[in-house]
């Protein structure tokens, strides 16, 4: 049982900077949990505070059933994998992997046996005598993982685990990491600035900004119901179209057109409310002929994404982007309409930038 619970956790640095600003949330036992956000949002500081490398200024933290707020890192039974892996260059792979067990005073024979065991499970057999300098990036990462596994922790903490790998390797490592966590079933918290990575790996994720949590939810929740315009623009490989509009009856006047009110916001708006209308490029359908509730514009730029194309549509003074199949690519200069299903569009309040309609998923989220 190793859930992580924090209550009004604060980390303030000298000078008054609050890197972690009053966070309360629970990470469930066995969850693969992502801390996602732009650089400087406090995600690494939060991770280090869970590890004990930073001591919390206020609030409390518990791992499993124990309150660890005042415990030094060595007594929290967590394992941390750093961005640069921190493999000790003067020890070979076996010595590196068995190091935590050495501290735990396991006998020499036992800890090397365990190291062999774990190493095998991570495809490292045959490399046990090598020094870290003689290993490839992917191998180094697996050694760091092996060391973490061998230490028998209740929680895994990963700081940007994949960012030191080159792009191709990163995708392989992603799948590998997810499978490993599922097999081991150990609560894992990882930090990343790459939203695609977070969405792919996490069971649940927290989007952070300036030391606060903006939203906690499953990848699907965060993708389909982002709590604010910031989250909406941060999540998703192509940025969501966010355009100012006004509520008129049961439609929204935006980009010179009248589009139907998004399903999720029906009943939660008032007439004349200033809003921000959001639609993902993936959910906009292109039509050369007029459609009801569509937005009309002229194609300006097309960007080839491989099997699909990102098209920019000039609409009056602004533009809207949508994605089509490679076979349906319209030529620049073509006039046409884009339309989206009301179930797939969103409305945000223009002033508060908050999502209109969908309720917050987790009662422990502190308001942004």
């Amino acid at each position: 049982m190793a859930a992580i619970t924090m209550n009004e956790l604060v980390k303030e640095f000298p000078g008054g900077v609050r890197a972690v600003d009053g966070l309360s949330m629970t990470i469930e036992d066995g969850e693969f949990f992502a801390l996602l956000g732009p650089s400087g949002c406090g995600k690494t500081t939060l991770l280090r505070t869970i590890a004990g490398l930073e001591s919390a200024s206020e609030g409390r933290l518990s791992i499993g059933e124990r309150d660890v707020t005042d415990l030094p890192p060595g007594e929290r039974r967590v394992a941390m994998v750093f961005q640069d892996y921190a493999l000790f260059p003067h020890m070979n792979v076996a010595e590196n992997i068995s190091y935590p067990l050495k501290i735990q005073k396991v006998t020499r024979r036992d800890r090397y046996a365990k190291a062999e065991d774990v190493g095998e499970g991570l495809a490292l057999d045959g490399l046990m005598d090598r020094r870290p300098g003689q290993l490839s990036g992917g191998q180094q990462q697996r050694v760091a993982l092996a060391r973490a596994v061998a230490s028998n922790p209740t929680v895994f903490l990963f700081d940007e685990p994949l960012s030191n790998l080159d792009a191709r390797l990163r995708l392989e490592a992603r799948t590998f990491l997810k499978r490993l966590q599922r097999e081991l079933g150990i609560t894992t918290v990882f930090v990343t600035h790459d939203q695609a990575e977070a969405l792919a790996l996490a069971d649940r994720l927290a989007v952070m900004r300036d030391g606060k949590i903006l939203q906690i939810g499953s990848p699907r929740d965060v993708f389909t119901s982002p709590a604010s315009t910031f989250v909406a623009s941060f999540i998703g490989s192509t940025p969501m179209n966010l355009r100012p509009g006004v509520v008129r009856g049961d439609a929204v006047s935006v980009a010179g057109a009248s589009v139907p009110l998004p399903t999720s916001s029906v009943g939660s708006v008032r007439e004349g409310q200033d809003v921000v209308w959001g639609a993902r490029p993936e959910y906009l359908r292109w039509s050369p002929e007029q459609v009801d509730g569509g937005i009309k514009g002229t194609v300006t730029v097309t960007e080839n994404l491989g099997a699909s194309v990102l098209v920019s549509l000039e609409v009056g003074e602004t533009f809207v982007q949508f994605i089509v199949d490679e076979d349906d690519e319209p030529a620049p200069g073509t006039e046409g309409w884009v339309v989206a299903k009301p179930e797939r569009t969103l409305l945000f309040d223009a002033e508060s930038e908050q999502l209109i309609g969908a309720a917050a998923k987790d009662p422990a989220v502190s308001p942004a």
Partner: protein
Amino acid sequence: MTTTIEQASTHPRAESMAFARAALGRIGRYVFLGFVIVFFALPVLWLVTAPFDRAPALRLSFPSFTLRNFETLLDNPYALRSLGNSLIISLGTMALVLILAALASYALSRVRIPGRDTLLYMLLLLSSIVTGTAAMVPTFVLITELRLIDTHLAVVLVMAGGLLPAAIFILKDFMDNTPKSYEESARVYGASPLQILRHVVVPIARPGLATIAVWSVVQVWGNFLVPFILLRSPENFPAAVIMFTFYTEGGQPNLALISAFSLLFSIPVVLLYLFVSRRYGFRFYGGIKS
């Protein structure tokens, strides 16, 4: 040589003038280097020829080869002993500087102690202006009052005190450039601070520590002034001081002894320099004389 620019004329005279200028430049360079080589090599040539000469003279001459001169070292009661003394105070100072500087520089690098940066710069400034020469009088009086005159301990302590600021500065810079993730990793896995130092910090800091160790030895090995003013008995003199007595003690200097002794005395530092420059390259840290 054709050009399309009018100024770089195809006039034969201008061409040959440019050629002559280049040639003169070249000759000038070689002549200068020649002088440099002669200036710096001449005194040193004696050092490598005279010890092996059967009849060593002050004048540089081709040696009639013998190793007999090195026997004189055994005849003189102080010669070999002084080399031992040099070793003692060099290694003693090295050990003291290494341990104290390593501890201090690690703490200063990793822990936010108030006034840390000012302290470092003050110390560095201090050690630059309070040189062995400028402090010879108060140092002498201090050691006399401490009743440590004529002891190796005094020399070690004084030299260590002078070398520590620079050593700490260099090592701290080295530690600053070493990532903290190694120590943090060990800490998360439960290692105590002492274990972290032993298992992680010291092994990783080895290049920096080796540099400081060699640097300390080199500084002390050839140092004349400090042992000269603090030591009295010839038995305690290190090689630098005893050698001075070989040639100033009236009468004819024993050339066989002096030449052999000079060579032996010089070899360790030359070897150390070669070792360091091969491994780490000759580096200067903020102009500190290494």
